[in-house]
């Protein structure tokens, strides 16, 4: 364990299936990645947390609905309050919505089908813990793989999020956002959102699947490395 590498936990629920990919990806991005089991979470010095994709508790009832009551979520709420970076990807995003750490809700994809393919997303905001390696307007090629990624928020919430810079990513084609480039019918083509403080990000695309040239894209590196850097700086800030 080197000093420079922040400790980032990966919360594992029964049914998580991107936990190994997330651990591997965080290591590639420069973190010490630590598996954190849902019901007896390590309370050691975690600088950030990633909630991976999958089907926690089978996604029964609603995606993410049952996971929100796991013991590890108390730790995650505390870390979010403390200002440490928390990244929820795919099912992780759904869980963050169910817990209320992020605004909005998730519906089934517009076409009622699971979709797995590489899409383009546009970075909409740099005022958060996951964007210091990129510039606003950057486009990234990152895979999605979900059956319920149709993000919904009511018009009032959307307006607030837009004015706070909480919309992190939108689906696009060469930077252009439109109905035809929206894979799942989400409100305003939203692919990812943050909390008002900017330290909690939920996104449907999988940045951990876009870190190595062999897999076709390295565009997820910016997001993951930003998180790693933010973990280091937030640790310094919190420990002052």
């Amino acid at each position, binding site marked *: 364990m080197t000093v420079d590498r922040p400790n980032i936990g990966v919360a594992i629920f*029964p049914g998580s*299936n991107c936990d190994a990919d997330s651990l591997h990806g965080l290591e590639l991005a420069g973190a010490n990645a630590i598996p954190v089991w849902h019901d007896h979470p390590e309370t050691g010095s975690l600088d950030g947390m990633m909630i991976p994709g*999958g089907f926690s508790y089978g996604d029964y009832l609603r995606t993410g609905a049952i996971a929100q009551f796991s013991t590890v979520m108390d730790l995650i709420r505390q870390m979010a309050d403390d200002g440490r970076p928390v990244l929820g990807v795919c099912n992780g995003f759904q869980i963050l919505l169910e817990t209320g750490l992020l605004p909005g809700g998730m519906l089934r994809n517009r076409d009622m089908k699971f979709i797995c393919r590489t899409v383009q997303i546009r970075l909409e905001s740099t005022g958060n813990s996951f964007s210091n390696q990129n510039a606003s307007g950057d486009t990234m090629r990152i895979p999605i793989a979900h059956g319920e990624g149709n993000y919904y928020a009511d018009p009032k919430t959307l307006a607030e999020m837009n004015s706070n810079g909480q919309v992190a990513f939108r689906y696009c084609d060469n930077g252009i956002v439109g109905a035809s480039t929206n894979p799942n019918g989400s409100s305003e083509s939203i692919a990812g959102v943050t909390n008002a403080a900017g330290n909690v990000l939920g996104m449907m695309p999988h940045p951990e*699947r876009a870190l190595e040239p062999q897999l076709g894209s390295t565009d997820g590196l910016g997001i993951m490395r930003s998180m790693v850097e933010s973990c280091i700086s937030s640790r310094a800030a919190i420990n002052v």
Partner: protein
Amino acid sequence: MSNTGATAPLYEELGLTASEYQMILETLGREPTQVELAMYSVMWSEHCGYKHSRSMLGRFPTEGEKVLQGPGENAGVIDVGDGWAVAFKMESHNHPSAVEPFQGAATGVGGIVRDIIAMGARPIALLDSLRFGSLESPRVQHLFEEAVAGIGGYGNCIGVPTVGGELFFDPSYEGNCLVNAMCIGLLRADQLTSAAAAGVGNPVILFGSRTGRDGIGGASVLASQEFKEGDEEKRPSVQVGDPFTEKLLIEASLELLDKELLVALQDLGAAGLTSSAAEMASLGGMGIELDVAAVPLRESGMEPWEVMISESQERMLAVVTPEKVAAVTEVCEKWGLTATQVGVLIEDSEFVINDGSDEVGRIPVLSLTDDCPKYQPESKKPDYIEASVPSVATVFSSDSVEDELLDLLGSPNIASKRSVWDQYDHMVMTNTTVLPGHDAAVIRLKGTDRGLAMTSDCNSRYVYLDPLKGGMIAVAEAARNVSATGATPAAITDCLNFGNPEKPEIYWQFKNAIEGISQACEAFGVPVVSGNVSFYNESNGAAIYPTPTIGMVGTLDDVTKTCESGFRSDGDRIFLVGDTLSELGGSEYASHVHNIVEGPIPSLDLGVAKATCDMVRSAVSSGVLKSAHDLSEGGLAIAVAESCVNGAIGAKIDLSSSGQELSIVESLFSETQSRFLVSTSQSDGDGFLKLAEEFGIRVAEIGEVGGDAMQIGSAVELPLDVVCNTYQQGIQKWIQKT
């Protein structure tokens, strides 16, 4: 003993013949109890007992220096280097899928995944080979869409990427669709796990889901009967899958093995507890005593025989030493699974079933597993083959090959399957380096330089017209697909789907297809390491096309030295590897465009087939190729179109220099075997020609990559976007037509 006195008519209802019942009476020396009769009926069904196929399966070559486990266990295992091994197997779930396509397909995936876990391997990839009736039929559309959703729903949830497969539509599958699922798992070679029971007195632990009345008389009995009208009523006996529990079962099983807590591991599949326990005892050469009252149940009031043959999903059976029972229970509890001791191993080779303190059955183990009657049915060459072979001397001619090409490109069997694999998570585990849509998928092995290529193939129309050669071609096509990625074919699994073997013509198809597959495997040096037979694929007396699906795994020493099918850059040189002959018999062109299904199917020289694959593989590894694509259904024209679409770039083909005197229809659509379409940079082209010469393979330079049109001589000039849209939207268009 209770439950005695089963009567004669019952055995018939359970699918046993009078002579089989007589064998049971002789073995036991008395009438069987109800539990015993139920157990014999499922173990001696075609599905478990292989009674019409066993005598032929010995023909397959099954040995090779890399084979760690051949047929006989839950899956075959081969050594892939650096201490790693790969377990794989394909299995059918045809009849359950015809009754309830979503659950049938889903539980098919679940079952094959558990076979792989039982070998001690982590499942790393799935392939699904699907065959349905004509896509114009609303019922077929329903079966197709639900089966795909079921596969996705299960595979996506358990986090194992579905990276490939096949999709084929033909009226012969109208009443009897085929759902064949293949799973590949990775393990350390020294952690190979067996189902063989060992250690008298060792507890037998059942873990996973609770047992209900799922599939009572399900797969085993269903698979032994032909379908007739009104069979929808069988729905209640279909099993329901729970992929969430399966995911927990994967993790729990691997943790148990990793902690070295198990003596033996076995999954519960067809015939449930009966088959699993009997196989474990049989492989270990010992006996087993089970208490049905100890089995955790989901429903009250289940009879002992129901518990013994229930096909409830997501269950595993393990043999454990007594001091490790507590540790095993603890691991299962961590994953939220029940683990219960349901029995114990005994010395005498007997299968004893107790219901609490009552003994309700006692059967010699081997009478269940090995003494299943074997039949050598009559075999007779079908009349349709005699009638068809000499005919397709008809040379097709056409004034509008361009229209025919578009018609074929957008047809259900040729058009892009993207709308299907888009619904499968094919990237989870972050190892898929060649995605679906190319000749074979490639998976990297993290932590090594190595990779695996995998494909499933069978042109069943060929097998129908000529089972011997069709069987050979299925293996040769799989080898071409694997070789196009630069991988070396290592071994195959097979899923042999046929009609009723008691009909001499069907058995003839079966025998000849096995002979063809065997000859091709010998020529390519690839053993058969696992497989499955599915008979009685008929509806209203009509059989499906004989469909011996071949699942092949190939190995890559360096996973970065691979190739995809799409053309790459302007100015690249295009080559056609192999000769083209006038071979339109049995072709997709003849079938789709002219509605003619007649032989003779394309010839196959196994020596040339192998040498061609060797040359292309060598070219991929040496880095001279920028694209490589095998030629199969639809011939050269379709291969060119696919390379254009997959590379999003045009091509200009000129066939005048190929030196072969064929009509344009033959040049474009002939399905001559052992051919590839490849491209190189300008500078590497000559090196490639030299390499081909060294291997003695004929290669013709036929054109150049570039532009935004697909042009073939003066006959075809199509804008790239028309080619792309036709290919990519084909399946949706066919569905919307009705």
